[in-house]
């Protein structure tokens, strides 16, 4: 395992699609391609340099063939929106083992316009289809959200704590021209917003957008010789874990075991502690997720997540700036937000974010897949240790 962590693998190219948001003139596969070409240009590489391709959504070979790449390594691991954390981790292992030299990881989803996207229909003979869908637990806002009331109840927290997450993140989005929701908002306005699925109002639920993103990874050794090497970001550690596809069957309702396991392995493989982390991306499809993550990763103790956010610790000037692009709640969310969380971590580490936090050297990226189904964690750094 030592070969894939500790800064031996680098992200040398990273880019989103040129525009994000509402893009009815681009199909799903074009969003992959546009992001891929942007990321390759960012790395100073061409498609001919790529020998490994991975994605989640379409099959990896759909992307490689579309781009004119002949792969010798493919990965199509799909565990929902945090697949891209796992794909980065798997790419690092492949590069460390010699199975690939330059890996392109792509995402593209026409989540809002649904251009070139297949139908979304539950399989009613699957376990989810039989034991969750008939009760209306199908759409994310009425399924992923079901455990939240229990989480709040167990800790003496309230809906205000969910609203505080929205307010803290909106503060970042206000100054980010690419963010989808940019209007300043108060706790009262969040609570009085259109009800979606109690306890969640509209702004506690992510935006729905069209966008793509891509990453190019190679060895730190090779990165040093590339044009993209000057802004390389290094993988210090990573972890992944999963429970299952039914949110009703998660081991604990008010804590997610896969967050605990994946993040612990990421910190251990990176050989860093919580105090070393300068910046956090916490995948926020809904406002309860950063609360779960802060506690399950161990940045705060049980029950302390609400006050930690309400007291401003994750805002500008706070001790743990979090979701600094505005997050899935305000920046963008195509349906699989993981790629965009990684992109923002890379921008912060390079010092080129829309709302830059001064002096970010180590960023922690926590992803979630499905509805408390899977977890992927990355520890990224601007410097090789």
């Amino acid at each position, binding site marked *: 395992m030592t070969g894939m962590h500790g800064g031996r693998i680098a992200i040398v190219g990273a880019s989103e699609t040129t525009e994000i948001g509402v893009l009815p003139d681009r199909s799903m596969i074009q969003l992959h391609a546009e992001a891929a070409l942007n990321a390759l240009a960012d790395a100073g590489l061409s498609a001919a340099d790529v020998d490994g391709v991975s994605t989640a959504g379409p099959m990896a070979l759909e992307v490689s063939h579309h781009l004119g790449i002949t792969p010798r390594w493919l990965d199509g691991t799909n565990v929902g929106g945090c697949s891209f954390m796992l794909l980065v981790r798997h790419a690092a292992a492949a590069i460390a083992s010699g199975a690939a030299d330059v890996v392109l990881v792509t995402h593209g989803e026409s989540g809002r316009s649904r251009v070139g996207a297949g139908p979304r229909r539950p399989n009613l003979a699957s376990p989810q289809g*039989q*034991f969750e869908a008939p009760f209306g637990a199908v759409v994310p806002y009425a399924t992923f959200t079901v455990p939240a009331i229990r989480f709040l109840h167990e800790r003496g927290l309230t809906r205000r704590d969910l609203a505080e997450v929205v307010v803290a993140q909106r503060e970042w989005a206000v100054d980010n021209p690419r963010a989808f929701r940019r209007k300043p908002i108060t706790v009262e306005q969040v609570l009085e917003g259109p009800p979606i*699925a*109690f*306890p969640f109002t509209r702004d506690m639920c992510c935006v729905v957008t069209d966008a793509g993103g891509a990453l190019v990874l190679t060895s730190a050794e090779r990165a040093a010789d590339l044009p993209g090497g000057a802004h390389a970001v290094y993988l210090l550690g990573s972890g992944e874990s999963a429970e299952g596809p039914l949110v009703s*069957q998660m081991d604990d309702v008010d804590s997610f075991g896969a967050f605990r396991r994946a993040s612990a392995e990421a910190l251990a493989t990176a050989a860093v502690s919580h105090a070393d982390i300068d910046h956090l991306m916490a995948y926020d499809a809904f406002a309860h997720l950063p609360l779960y993550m802060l506690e399950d990763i161990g940045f705060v103790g049980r029950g302390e997540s609400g006050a930690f956010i309400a007291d401003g610790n994750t805002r500008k000037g706070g001790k743990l700036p979090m979701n600094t692009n505005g997050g899935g709640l305000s920046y963008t969310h195509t349906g699989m937000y993981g790629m965009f969380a990684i992109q923002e971590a890379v921008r912060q580490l390079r010092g080129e974010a829309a709302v830059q936090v001064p002096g970010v050297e180590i960023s922690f990226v926590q992803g979630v897949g499905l509805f408390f189904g899977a977890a992927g964690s990355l520890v990224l750094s601007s410097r090789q240790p």
Partner: protein
Amino acid sequence: MADGAVPVPTPETAPFWAGTLAGELRIQQCNSCGKHYFYPRPFCRYCQSRDVAWRAVSGRGRLVSYVINYLPLPPAKPNEPQIIALVELDEGPRMMTNIVGVSPDPVNLPLDGRVRVDFEPRGDQALPVFRFTEEATR
């Protein structure tokens, strides 16, 4: 009961759905480790033993968590708020379900409140839904 998706039983789950049509909540118990488990499968989820048996259970349990969905999508009836809930059975397993018999308001939905199964028709199947009972919260 609002309209909605109709579950499609598989060979492994058919006894569960035959039970709901007969007005019985049937779940499986492992004869090796003694645990009840859910959803149905012909081996134990905890110890993987294939020595398991179907049991008709009381259908009593407690409300663990819920949302009130104000925006149900078809085939559920739009604009008819739906209480989507997690219920933990006294035997241990947890199920996704709907709470029925109360208006969809948080004041009517005490966490840990005692509930009991009821069955409502859905297409050619019957769904296990839950109602609050008069029992004191344990």
